[in-house]
């Protein structure tokens, strides 16, 4: 049971953060959208600050939390590039990723997000099944 307390704590923190951001600013937290805004919108400062904060916060792994298993050894650049292209293009075409659809969208029971989450979970599971 102990192995599930940290994931639950992390999830609660993610939920608390997205709920507070929603109630304060009226916006949803969708990383793929925020990244695109940081790159291509007219007002880049706020989304850029978000991305910097995200990277800093996400680096706390290993400082506050003992890793349960090591990071993968450096994998093939080709695999990482294909993966990045699919994630970058797919999340924009599908209007969201794990945060925008998976957390914020499911929280408000959006039909688009429920469908998108079911689809990306399915194709991700099949991909792991075929590549492992």
């Amino acid at each position, binding site marked *: 049971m102990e192995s599930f307390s940290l994931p639950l704590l992390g999830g609660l923190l993610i939920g608390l953060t997205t709920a507070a951001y929603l109630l304060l600013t009226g916006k949803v937290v969708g990383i793929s959208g925020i990244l695109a805004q940081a790159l291509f919108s007219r007002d880049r400062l706020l989304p850029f600050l978000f991305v910097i904060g995200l990277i800093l916060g996400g680096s706390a792994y290993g400082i506050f939390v003992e890793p349960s298993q090591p990071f993968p050894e450096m994998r093939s650049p080709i695999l*990482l590039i294909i993966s990045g292209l699919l994630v970058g293009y*797919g999340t924009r075409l599908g*209007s969201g990723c794990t*945060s925008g659809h998976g957390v914020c969208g499911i929280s408000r029971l959006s039909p688009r997000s429920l469908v998108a989450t079911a*689809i990306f979970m399915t194709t991700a599971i099949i991909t792991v099944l075929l590549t492992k």
Partner: protein
Amino acid sequence: MYAIITFLTGLLFGLGLAVSEMTNPAVVIGFLDIFGEWNPSLIFVMGGAVSIGMIGYVIRNRRSKPWLADKWYVPTRRDIDKNLVLGAGLFGIGWGLSGYCPGPGLTALTNNPMEGVYFVGALITGSALFHFQNHRNNS
């Protein structure tokens, strides 16, 4: 004020990803490997995030506007179109290949920089590809 809130939201969201080990692609792939040695821990991440998220929307539905803005910017579309289905499908394949979705992928720049530069470079390129394709179609 807005800048501080936005930065802190990113920071705490990133911390949540780190605490829950979403930032480690080995853990994420273990979660997606439901037919192998399945690691169900990320269900607790989603469960925790969505349960608090739902409380947020219950409060939202009782308010006419946010505390610091004039209106809500929550997406309102409900139609299931081809782009949603195709985009989500492609995203899932990319996610399953590396174990990185956009947030954890960005944190790989510091957690696992060798992988991070390739993934984030391609992530930005994929996002740009969509942006310029769309821009051209609209003009």
